[in-house]
């Protein structure tokens, strides 16, 4: 315990890094994923193709490889992220957006056709029926899968440690290398850090789900 309180500063700032990584990339992934999902159901073929291509590529690429490209490969097309943190956010968002898109699309597919037909019969355009009728229902059905994507994202932030971001996992490596006798305490503290993020999220998701669920 003495040991952990000695390193409380490092652990606390690492925890905040992990948390902000998860929150910022979660928001970015949600926005990008929604755009992708809208593209995948749109009548415009090239956009549909582009979104499908994006999802297939990112779903089949390991997150580590995505990180790797943004950290080392992207320099070759004259792009450079201002900091390691932003590189990590970009990698996590780009990767997670593909899964957000798939979750949303399954939600859109779960909306009964009658809803969209009714919207059409009322004379709503594609954009209107998507925004006002289909997407709100889709969002409410996909609260559990989206929540799970978010939890997976929170755990996946640990990969940023391999790319020089000082998050919880990086703190773990640093503390473990310096204090071989305190390994278990270090691991317990770090795992607790992740659980502090994921467990309340799981509860919150369940609470939201029961609030907004659509009884069909």
């Amino acid at each position, binding site marked *: 315990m003495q040991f952990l309180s000695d390193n409380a500063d490092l652990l606390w700032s690492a925890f905040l890094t992990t948390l902000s990584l998860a929150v910022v990339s979660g928001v970015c992934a949600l926005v990008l994923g929604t755009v992708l999902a809208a593209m995948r*159901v749109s*009548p*415009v*073929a*090239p*956009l549909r*193709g*582009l979104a499908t291509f994006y999802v297939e*590529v990112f*779903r*089949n*690429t*390991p*997150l*580590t*490889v995505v990180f*790797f*490209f943004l950290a*080392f*490969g992207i320099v*070759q*097309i*004259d792009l450079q992220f201002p900091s390691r943190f932003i590189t990590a956010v970009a990698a996590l968002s780009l*990767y997670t957006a593909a*899964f957000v898109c*798939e*979750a949303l699309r399954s939600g*859109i*597919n779960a*909306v009964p*056709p009658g809803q*969209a*037909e009714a919207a*059409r019969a009322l004379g709503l355009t*594609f954009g209107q029926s*998507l925004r006002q009728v289909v997407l709100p229902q889709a969002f409410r059905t996909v609260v559990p*899968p989206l929540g*799970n*994507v978010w*939890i*997976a*994202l929170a*755990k*996946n932030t*640990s*990969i940023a*440690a*391999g790319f020089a971001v000082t998050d919880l*996992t990086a703190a*773990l*490596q640093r503390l*473990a290398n310096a204090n*071989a006798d305190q*390994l278990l305490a270090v*691991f317990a503290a770090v795992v607790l850090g*992740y*659980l502090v993020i*994921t*467990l309340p999220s*799981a509860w919150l998701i369940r609470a939201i789900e029961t609030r907004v669920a659509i009884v069909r």
Partner: protein
Amino acid sequence: MSTSVLFDLPGPSARRRQRIGTAVGALVVLGLIGLVLWRLGANGQLQPDRWAVLFDPASGVPQALGDGLVNTLAVAAVGMVAATVLGALLAVGRLSDHAWVRIPVGVVIEFFRAVPLLILILFCLLFLPTVGVPMTAFRALALGLTLYNMAVLAEIFRAGILSVDRGQREAAFALGMRKTQVMTLVLLPQAVRRMLPVLVAQLVVLLKDSSLGFIVGYVELLRTARSLVEFFNFQFGSQYTFQLYVAAGLIYIVLNVVLSQLARTIEKRTRSSSKTAAAKEIELPADVQMGGGGGPV
């Protein structure tokens, strides 16, 4: 719902708008591709001799990438076999009638799903040697992948076992089979068959996750590409950097797409065969596909 319900059968003006939209969309897509190609070309990344190195055996690159690929496949294979066996055992344990089996097994499953995969691997790598278990990067990676995926697969198997018709189980009991026999002779074979597509899909995730070996120093595909880059940088500057990274990324994508396709084929076959015709379609949830220790807590 098929997406076509979202928009009407287009009339003349809607068709015109769609054509315009299609053209603009195509232009945007082509423009993006063109922009990237232009930047790459301007940096000389598209010169054929830079890419030739990937296929030139004299440079040693194809061999090294091949070795990296074999290492990746090796750790994935070990993880997959071990995780499948342990996962099936855990699934049976979690369905046990005895609370003293069911509850601890449940705790084990939930624990390994709640911890990030990288932390599990680091735990194996750093902690196990201190209690006298000799560790290498390969073992730590295989063990971490096994522990995480066995928990995921256990839940998948459990869903499969529970999805077998009640009548099967009742009939087996009525024939006088014991609980073990019912499980091993009647329920598990049907569950495994039903779960085959999901098992293959999980292999894709496992293969993706094996790239975490890059972080713990296991010389898999990605780490091989990195060390090749470092080696070439020393001799020729960063001439081949981009090409090697692209090659490693492409190998992963091709491999995973092939495996995903395989999963789809198996799924179609199992669904069309009469024996499992009634099987419900069980999809791998998005969070599990994300790898890295997803899953509900």
